[in-house]
């Protein structure tokens, strides 16, 4: 009965891989630093609410929303994510509007509610890499920021200072002219639930 044993082992392996070892998930790997679309629930709630219909990606005018294959574990197969360095979110809030399941909450496209309810991550400046901190006036990240003077303020030699109001859209990281980028989004996996 080799065949039966083989099929049994396949089934066991399949079920085992469904129950993921959290530490192996890509979200803890620096190479796969991703954010969820704006207004997404906390990571656990998001994965359980999202039905993987792909409409958020289909409505995104900036085409920044990508979909996981198996690289982040089977639990997040086909769920949407954004890699800010590749293409960042322009905060149009259309994905929340189209999401049928509430995994991405509806948020009005208006500075007040975006600041209140969106928290994809938090930008952080690496002063060793940033040109302005090295004496070469730059200021590109400040100019790319949709929430200028609220999320990011500028100091001497256009040195960027990010405040906690940053929503983590990643436009600064996308626009940074340094390679590797001197400003990055530290993803926030907790989400901010609209009450």
């Amino acid at each position: 009965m080799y065949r039966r044993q083989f099929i049994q082992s396949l089934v066991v392996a399949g079920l085992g891989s469904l129950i993921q070892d959290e530490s192996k998930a890509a979200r803890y790997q620096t190479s796969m630093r991703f954010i969820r679309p704006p207004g997404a629930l906390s990571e656990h709630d998001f994965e359980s609410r999202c039905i993987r219909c792909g409409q958020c990606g289909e409505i995104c005018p900036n085409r920044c929303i990508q979909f996981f294959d198996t690289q982040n574990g089977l639990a997040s197969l086909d769920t949407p994510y954004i890699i800010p360095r590749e293409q960042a979110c322009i905060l149009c809030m259309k994905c929340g509007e189209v999401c049928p399941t509430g995994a991405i909450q509806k948020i009005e496209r208006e500075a007040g509610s975006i600041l209140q309810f969106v928290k994809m991550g938090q930008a952080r400046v690496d002063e060793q890499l940033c040109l302005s901190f090295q004496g070469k006036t730059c200021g590109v990240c400040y100019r790319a920021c949709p929430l200028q003077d609220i999320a990011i303020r500028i100091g001497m030699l256009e040195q960027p200072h990010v405040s906690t109001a940053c929503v983590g859209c990643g436009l600064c990281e996308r626009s940074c002219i340094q390679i590797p980028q001197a400003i990055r989004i530290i993803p926030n996996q907790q989400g901010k639930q609209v009450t």
Partner: protein
Amino acid sequence: MNWQMHLNKLRWVVLSMVMFMLILLPFLHLYQSYVAAHAYDLLSPAEKLIYDSMELISAPFVSDPETDLNSFKGTSWSGKLFGITLSDPLALLGQITASKHIYWPFVVTALIPILYSLLLGRFYCGWICPATFLYELNDNLGTWLKRAGLPISQRRLDRRIKYMVLLAGMVIGMLSSAVVFAAIYPPAIIGREIYYAIAVGGFGTGMVFFLLTLLFDLLVARRGFCRYICPGGALYALLGRFRVIRIQRNVLSCNDCAKCNTVCQFGLDPWHDDFGQECNNCSACIAICPTEALIFKIKTTDTTYQGAGHLGQEYKKQQGEKKPSPGEL
């Protein structure tokens, strides 16, 4: 003349249209993002071709493509059609079991599909499901391969397996807090993978799974996935248990030719009045019946076996009649 024999053609038109929409929508999405970027001059020749052809197709229907096209999104798993969001009941079930939470706006989007499933049974399976389109073509391929002499297996498994799959999907969904049906339900996979292939850049893992199901259908059991494994089929069958429209056999005009049994890809037995909750109303048996003995009727229960068809040899033997000579017919 029985108009119902043309329903199968209509069904193929509907299935082709669903498939066409699934291919068209990703292109419209690309077009929409090009419009939003105001970047026609920067597009590559291939992208310009997409832009121009999609502009041609959508121009009669939309005035402002950037916003108006938002009312056509998604797939048959969950999507917007003319601005109305419709979702698969299986998506709803999967989401409720995974999140242990009921999100009412989502429930509302599944109401229309639930309603027509209550009335028509596995109507979705036969008439809308984009995977059915491919599975039926795959089944035709199987028939040709068989004619060419390849050994095509037509094993019969237990129909109840799919209800176990539905249950297992709910339990695993609860344990893993993820909508597992999305990964194993062919129509969801098809819609998603077509979108990936056109707009994102290449098929994903789902396509491998789908190709395996095609092989399963070809090598193990005819239309095996729909009949024995598909959790969506199981859910629709349960919803349609008391459906009001059923195919019925008129025993008086049946001549026992058994063409209906051969043509039924779900392996049902219309010849012996056996449809059950598995019938997906595809109406192939109606289309092939030479004596118009099969017909859709408004009825909430199936008829039990009515005996041999009254035009058939068996019935005439039972009645003690002689075999009719060719002259009599």
